């Protein structure tokens, strides 16, 4: 997602339309990484 946002901001996707991001899951790993957020 960080990459997609960067590409949009830099104009790399200026010709694109109706972009789809595939959420492949993985949110259970938020918990062991909690210190990055709290």
């Amino acid at each position: 997602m960080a990459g997609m946002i960067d590409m949009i901001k830099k104009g790399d996707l200026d010709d694109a339309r109706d972009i789809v991001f595939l959420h492949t899951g993985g949110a259970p790993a938020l918990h062991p990484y909690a210190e990055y957020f709290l």
Partner: protein
Amino acid sequence: MKQNRREILRTAAMATIASSALSSVAKSQSAEKFDSIPRVKLTSLPTSLNKMANLTTLMGGPDIYIKRDDVMELAHGGNKTRKLEFALAEALMSGAKAVVTQGGLQSNHVRQTVSGAAKVGLEVHVILSNPVPEMEAELKGSGNYLMDQIMGAHIHLAGAEGRGPVVEKVLADLTAAGKKPYNIPAGASNAIGSMGYVNAGRELIEQWKEQGISPSHIFTATGSCGTAAGLLMGLRYFGNKTTKVVAMSVSASADRLKPRIRQILNEASDMLGVSHDFVKDDDIHVEDGYYGKAYGYPTDAGIAALRMVGEAEGILLDPVYTSKGMSGVIDMLRKDKLVNPRDLVFLHTGGAPAIHPYANYFKA
């Protein structure tokens, strides 16, 4: 920037409310009153209803089904998503720019409210208290509390004074700031929230018909009572007169829960235009033998039930609600306490994110 973005989201959500109200024209007479209540779509419905074939075999009794309300599109899902479809619609229609709610540090309701508010463009303030003082560090270290922060909640911690005064102050401050705050009670367990489970009742009747089953009982873990009351009302309102709704208490005695269920039923009756005795007192069933010490304290039988369903079905229950509820269902089946059980349904109300702060209960 943030305010402009929220304005756009609110306008888009309002547009979906208007369109759902129009589509109700074609619905049946009995559903008309219900379908006129504004609702904002927060997830795809229906949720799955599946047979737990392995658990059924293990128990050696009637078929056991599970209604997967733990799988919804507000972050990690759960039963509050259905309630918020109605509560947040009311918030948007009232012109609110902020929504306020409350619960424990690991409240699943709060997490879903934060998720839903983000989606429809409402600023969200949550007032949290700690129901398990000895677990302060764990309850603030992962799970729902972590997710609330990630999704942009304004968190207000309540101490010994309780949540009430903090809620009042937050509401007053937001009102003074011109944000017209909309207050959702703990668990969204009021009449408008219960409409989410009136809707689930209609959905279940349809699924039972499709699958050719006729459940004798449906079980739901019960804390603030809105799900149990709404589900009971929904089944009866849409024509099911026989399936017993059994509220499996996770926190209090039947003496305390029954009046609360009655109260929400009465308020829901007013909203739906039926009399208060449309659902009779003897149609309210509460089992209070399985909640253990108190809210937020897992039981040994609950942890065992959580592991059993995990190993047998690959489905994760939660340590605070559904594990206690399921432990009761298992116990009643083993002791042959259910009258003419058939096609039992367990409503999975979600909550698995709280497994993480309760990890110590599962370590070998």
